[in-house]
């Protein structure tokens, strides 16, 4: 897709504050439990005994802000029985609310947790890249609202040229399956890759 849009997250700038999440929810008027953009805290390391003291050993932590990846190979689209999910000319994966049956099957397939059930509507909903704002020349709410300028968006090819191709930081999954259109700038210090077992998601209850 020539015009495929994507996101960029600079992991070295993300402070885990979740202004992106709240900006997204405010703009899209999302009910509780529907969180189109979420931020995972990936943390590892331990305290070990040294002499009569405990000292930190390889303790690290970082945050990964994730929305829909608008994948090249969106599994949600493939499995949707109602053919309610489509990819538009900008590569934005959208759910047609008039077609969705609310079976929640796509929820099981997406490793990024993008499609989410809106109990008020009875349908699946997801990040639509703020298409209405884009049409108005505005940035997506999350990008405009990132307090520490960690988020960017644009044609994915341009983003890759500018920021590189890294798309598999832990705790995300192997990107080769769905081919996500999101690139990450790794941190200066430690950024684990998707196959790492060095840490775990520290805030699962918030995702």
């Amino acid at each position, binding site marked *: 897709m020539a015009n495929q849009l994507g996101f960029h997250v600079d992991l070295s700038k993300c402070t885990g504050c979740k*202004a992106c999440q709240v900006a997204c*929810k405010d703009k899209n008027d999302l009910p509780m439990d529907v969180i189109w953009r979420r931020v995972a805290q990936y943390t590892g390391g331990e305290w070990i005994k040294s002499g009569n003291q405990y000292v*930190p050993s390889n303790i690290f932590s970082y945050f990964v802000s994730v929305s829909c990846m608008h994948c090249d190979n969106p599994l949600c689209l493939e499995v949707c029985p109602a053919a309610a999910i489509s990819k538009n000319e900008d590569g934005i994966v959208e759910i047609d609310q008039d077609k969705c049956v609310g079976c929640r099957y796509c929820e099981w397939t997406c490793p990024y947790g993008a499609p989410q059930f809106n109990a008020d509507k009875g349908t699946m909903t997801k990040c639509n890249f703020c298409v209405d704002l884009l049409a108005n020349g505005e940035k997506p709410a999350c990008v405009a*609202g990132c307090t*520490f*300028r960690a988020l960017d968006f644009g044609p994915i090819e341009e983003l890759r040229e500018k920021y590189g191709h890294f798309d598999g930081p832990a705790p995300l999954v192997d990107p080769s399956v769905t081919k996500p259109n999101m690139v990450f700038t790794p941190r200066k210090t430690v950024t684990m890759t998707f196959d790492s077992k060095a840490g775990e998601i520290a805030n699962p209850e918030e995702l």
Partner: protein
Amino acid sequence: MGQNQPLSQILDDVVLTRRSFVKWSSALGGTAALAGGLGTALHSAQTTEAARAAESTSQLITTACYHNCGGRCILYADVQDGVVKRLVPDIDEVDTIDQPRSIPCLRGRSQIHRVYSTDRLKYPMKRVGKRGEGKFERISWEEALDTIASEMKRLKEAYGNESFYFHYASGTQWPGPNGRNPVRRLMRLFGGYTDYYGTYSSACYSAVIPLITGGINNSADDMLSSKLVVLFSSNPVVTTSGGDNVGYHCMKAKEAGARFICIDPIMTDSCVALEAEWIPINPGTDVALVAALSHVMITNDLYDKDFMAKYSVGFSEDTLPEDAPKNSSWMAYVMGDADDVEKTPEWAAEITGIPAERIVSLAYDMAQTKPCAIFQNLGFQRRAYGEQPVRAIPILAAMTGNFAIHGGSTGGTVGSAGGIKMGGVPTGDNPVKGVISVFMWPDMITRGTEMTNGPQDRIKGVEKLNANMKFMWNHGGNTITNQHSDINLTQEILSDDTKLELIVTCEVMMTPSAMWSDILLPASTGFETDNVITGGGSGRVAWAMYSHQVIDPLFEDMPEIWMADQLADRLGVLDEFREGKETTEDWIRFMVDTAREADENFPTFEEFKEIGIYKKTSPGQKIGAAAFVEDPEANPLTTPTGKIEIYSPTLAALEDPEEIPAIPKYIPEWEGVSDPLRDTYPLMMITPHAVQRSHSTFSGIDYLEEAHHHVMWINALDAADRGIENGDTCYVFNDRGKIEIKARVTPRIRPGVIAVPQGHWHKPDKDGLDKGGCGNTLTKYYPTPYAKGNPQHTNLVQVEKA
């Protein structure tokens, strides 16, 4: 709460969305009023967003986010067909270090959910049950104001104005017409009230920084020149998350290549985001670390001797004042000449929990990396002996030669480059001269007439108080319970309404403190009234915002200026109160006039209201105390001696060397790392700031509670000992109370320490178990020795799985 049912039903039913707004508006028979015109940036480079928005039906109207994080961020309301559809951050297209966009943090972005919160106060109410029981009855504004006026007259007659108290609060601390100033002005015109000194944020800092450097420091953007930044007890990306604040500038400095070190019992989000080296220190032991760092620098000749000799008082014996006793210098303390204990890295390792070799390498790092900015923030001064670390950190800044250079620091909190000067509603002079420590108001209730300027109370302005507190005005504050120490003790004191006879709370929310009030006055939020807010200044840009009213006041909420004006009438001081200014607009015009006197570019009232935002840039990168270093005789510091006062004659004169030493010292804390009480309560509880709240403001706001759950941090080792897994519900308790909170099991906190983020609303069940998980249910009401400040990070507790 005995509130009008149908309306409160509407409130309770709404799901806090824009749909609900429509529901509200129609229920109240009104539509949103748009007080102002289209707000856009002042800069000639009009943003495309704004231009496009103007073409469509939507209007971006300037409002503000204005809470006590200090952020003051720029927020636009996207108003479509009379409804606030969404909030939009600063739309300025320019976003450089010279003129950064002021992007509000998550708290600001959830304002719609705060304004339409089900916790909003809707009507004036009076208490009908026992105080604190939570039983209220709706009354009219007429009745509320009449009652307050007649009670104020009665109490003044019976006990005098000294029995009046205007309580510390940070909910509406800006100086404009819809803030706390109008009521203060009114109360002063009515004869005054006993005032307070200090704040719950910075009691110790404000008390002793004037006695070491005076507090002047490099502006935040000057960190761009730093090679190394050492942060003591500082978490700026959380505490000042949005806008042009310290968090922003730290991240910019990192981007520019500065290396960071965070000295803190927890690996804060700042430590994570700044990719800083984390030096996990035992709470309350920072002075021991500073002493050992000094020891390494002294014994290895790593410090600037000439600088210390020329600019400091009491670093070495030769720079002590003449009347100072022998061996009372910092060097004598460090080298053990004073007490036979050499403050070696090994000595400090035992106390701080930091390995001796790490202390040595840190000392070399700080001494040999230049420029190195050594900053402190306020966390560690909210402790049992909070005065000490405040005065210790600047010694390192001076020793390492980083005092008053670009990229350096004077060792205090981060400075500012200058803000925008605007007027405000003047409070006038307070005829009552007695001033108590901000933290000690409960003592004024129980034993006010016994309070003196002696060591126990350290009241100021007068030798002793002549009245107990009988009338309290609590204006936008949650410090009657939630934010004060030892909630259970505090409530016991408040429960006797023959002592403190009347508590008036002016609030937007039914806070835990409002629950303990006698009369509740529902105030408008910033969305419901015009106001002026100024912000910025930590770097190169400062701004003033015309915060427009974007919706009709909900229910019977009223602006603060109106309340004060009404009371002034009832108390017979209307003319003096008004001085010709009646409305919000009159007062804002007055503020604008003041601003224009100081800055000829400041727009006129009409322009300001139209454009909404005025930004002013400055060259930035201000060096604190540059003039002093250039010529200390001509440009002395504001300290009593005019120098870096490591030895304070002021403190020496108090003759309390154990708890108020003349030089900063490590004083083992009660309920600290070495208190034998740890046999019973082994864990040290700190109560740090949470990113989802500004103190207790925003507690309970759905979007924020969802984004960041209220959790207690506990080290995996301590959790394992107690069979606690991540996400388990736990009890935290000591002799003062018990709270319920979920555990976040993490390596990001020192073993032996737990962190219960401050500000979550107290919510006791019938047995007194605080289901809200408010840390202050467990904190101790025990003022610090000199500042009489709040030691809310010094607590011993035990944790068990629920």
